[in-house]
């Protein structure tokens, strides 16, 4: 490829996910591999790929067992795809699914593969449990021991406290604060109200319910273990009902974050089929949209300079500049609802003259977003958020919504991730 030639754009052909389940419920006994395989099976069936290879499958999980070192490849081998399909795992916390999409799309753009599947899976029910660090050291010493005497010595180091397992917690290792506590600080900083958060949560449920009712998910979702809709969805959710809930994050009178305006722990998986236009055309497959651009960013949340989940706010200006666009040019915007407050803080930051000037180095604020373009088919507050599966859910749904709006329609995806990171991407209807 000549240096000046623009790489081609990868096509989003379609997607598939299983309904998301609340943790410790319907999918309690399903593993990450089970769910990823089920998602792949639905995708393969939808696009008639049984027995066929694709260029590569890229997916990951945030909560991952050590035995799942080859999670994606194992899922491929358990699926109906040709066993000659290569696969690898990626992990970027909640950005995993979107990052995987960008990786596959970039390889397609460069002509390194003609097709690929990106996705993610997560289970909060079947989470890996690590042995206590003391026990782990003792066991390793025992494993190294060569003589009976050394073995005895190693065993003698066992202590009752060591049998307490370590269950993964949703905590930032460098601050010891949960994601919710971090978010509560940012929400307080931006003065996001309880009412605004509850309204956003209700809208998410209403939008998702309406999307189900009009059959929007008929070709985006395959039922799993008897579940046909996202288990967390409450079609009858209302601001009055949500107002009754007690805050779970933050302290005292200023606490605004409840179980309803924060995403619940969820199990699920999603995948997206990508390809070159030629690959799609050869198979008579539809092209819903193209991946136009992507950007990641990270913030210094450890020193308290910036909020943990604010990185997407920093990624956007790069995209807008490269694409010569304004936020208001997007027909649709998907901001992952880690918490209702995440969305509201991000929007507030883009509206803030001082933030845009001091933090983003812009002459003028990015400005307000027409809220009727935001998360039009519901988002994580209603659907739930199996960490690595959220990216695939959004990419496939947005691609379909853009296609419904007509050729050239553009959509923005924003996903915040643990570790102070953010992933963004732009799709354009084919």
């Amino acid at each position, binding site marked *: 490829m000549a240096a000046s030639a623009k790489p081609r754009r990868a096509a989003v052909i379609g997607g598939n996910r299983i309904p998301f389940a609340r943790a410790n419920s319907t999918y309690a006994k399903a593993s990450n591999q089970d769910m990823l395989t*089920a998602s792949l*099976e*639905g995708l*393969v*069936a*939808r*696009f*008639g790929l*049984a*027995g066929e290879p694709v260029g590569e499958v890229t997916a990951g999980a945030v909560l991952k067992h050590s035995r799942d070192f080859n999670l994606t490849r194992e899922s491929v081998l358990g699926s*109906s795809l040709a066993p000659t399909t290569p696969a690898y795992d990626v992990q970027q916390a909640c950005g995993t699914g979107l990052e995987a999409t960008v990786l596959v799309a970039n390889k397609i753009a460069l002509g390194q593969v003609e097709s690929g599947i990106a996705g993610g899976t997560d289970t909060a029910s079947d989470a890996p449990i690590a042995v206590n660090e003391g026990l782990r050291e003792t066991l390793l010493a025992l494993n190294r021991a060569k003589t009976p005497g050394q073995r005895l010595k190693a065993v003698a180091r066992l202590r009752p406290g060591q049998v307490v397992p370590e269950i993964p917690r949703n905590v930032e290792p460098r601050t010891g604060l949960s994601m919710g506590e971090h978010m509560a600080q940012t929400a307080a900083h931006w003065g996001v109200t309880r009412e605004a958060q509850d309204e956003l949560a209700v809208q998410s449920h209403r939008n998702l319910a309406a999307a189900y009712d009009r*059959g929007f*998910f*008929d*070709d985006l*979702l*395959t*039922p*799993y*273990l008897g579940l*046909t809709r996202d288990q967390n969805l409450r079609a009858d959710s209302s601001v009055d009902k949500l107002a009754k809930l007690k805050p779970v994050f933050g302290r005292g009178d200023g606490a605004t974050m409840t179980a309803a305006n924060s995403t619940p722990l969820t199990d699920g998986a999603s995948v997206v089929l990508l390809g070159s236009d030629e690959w799609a055309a050869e*198979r*008579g*497959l*539809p092209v819903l949209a193209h991946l136009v651009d992507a950007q990641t960013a990270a913030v210094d949340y450890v020193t308290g300079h910036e909020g943990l989940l604010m990185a997407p706010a920093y990624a956007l200006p790069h995209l807008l500049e490269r694409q010569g666009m304004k936020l208001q040019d997007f027909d649709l915007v998907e901001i992952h609802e880690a918490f209702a407050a995440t969305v509201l803080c991000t929007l507030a930051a883009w509206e803030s003259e001082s933030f845009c000037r001091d933090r983003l180095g812009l002459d003028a604020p990015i400005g307000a977003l027409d809220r009727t373009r935001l998360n039009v088919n519901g988002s994580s507050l209603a659907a739930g958020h199996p960490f690595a599966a959220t990216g695939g859910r959004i990419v496939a749904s947005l691609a379909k919504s853009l296609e419904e709006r007509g050729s050239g329609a553009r959509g923005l995806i924003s996903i915040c991730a643990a570790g102070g990171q953010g992933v963004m991407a732009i799709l354009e209807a084919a």
Partner: protein
Amino acid sequence: MTGAYAGFVNSAVGTKLAAQLGLPRPVRLRRYAADAPLVEGPVLVAGLADAPVAEHVRTLLSDEGVEVVDAVPAGSRLGAVVLDLTTVTEPGDLDLVRVVLAPAVKALRASGRVVVVGADPASATSVAQAASRRALEGITRSVGKELRFGATANLVLVAEGAEANTDAAVRFLLSGRSAYVDAQVVRVGPGTPAEPADWALPLAGKVAVVTGAARGIGASIADVLARDGAHVVCVDIPAAGESLARTANRVGGTALQVDVTAADAGQRILDATGRHGGLDVVVHNAGITRDKLLANMDESRWDSVLDVNLGSILRMNEVLLGENGIRDGGHVVLVSSIAGIAGNRGQTNYAASKAGVIGLVDALSVDADLVRRGISVNAVAPGFIETEMTAKVPFATREVGRLLNSLSQGGLPVDVAETIAWFSQDANAGVTGNVVRVCGQSLLGA
């Protein structure tokens, strides 16, 4: 072969008791297997006068490497008998049936076949000829009831000048594919059958749509169509998506989650077949039961059964059989039921829909546009088939359903599927407007 009764009569004690009491003894039926011959054992082919169809049958059998004989060979058992009586003109001619079949039936193997070929009574030129032609139906149905050990008897009625079009029907009736088809009348008309390059893949390169493909009979239809070479677009309601995906991936086909009652179902199905370059075969299989005595029948039971089983088909056909729909020379297959023929207590709604399906076949098969485009329209009417639908039937009723037929057992979904796959063959283009029961010669509605 399943069921408590079959288990009992085939147990050591049961076998003895059943023999003493003269109870029916269900046998394992001969069904399609990739490596099995068309018929096991020699086939006796006989006919009256110049017997024009017998000649075709001899040729196709020798093409298949099947031994053809003129009489029962000493010390050997027959795989089948084909009797060409297309030239009967008066009752006296019928005695040939007795002369040929009496020794042949005695020498017939388990799962053997009797195929009688006649001409259509409606086109007879004399009263005596019409009566004699019609007599063949009575003979065949009676022979079906006399045959044992899984053997069947069927009648092929050939229209004037369509003698060369009978190959696909004769092959089907002789083969294991027709295991549960017994005492049926198959009408072969003009059409222009196209012989497949390979009779083992009669649907090679075809694109088929099967509704209700997630489970039961529909899943079996997908299996058999794919086995015969077709690409299958498998349709079922979104809620059945998980098993639908399993069917689609098993057959290397495509899954389409669509409720057939949706207003745009036909268009969405057509769009899905577009990527495979066109549509050759439509199988309307999706169906439901919502049983209640008429006196207690509510509106929702009535409406849902009529809409899923009949209304949706009429709506989808507007698009699927329209200008940009099914290709010329394509095949439409519907799924009726013996309940639609005989009626059934508690099933006024279901019987209405399934009888309606027969009416639909009658009308569409003579539709001028479809006839011009060479599109065949047929239906199967399954009897008692072992599926999740019939597993819901109460135990006693279920056992009776299994036994009230000449083969003393329920059919399997694959038996229905085989008949549908046969209706879907270009080689079978002479067969249209037929309703073939897959019922083991059930006593209901016969």
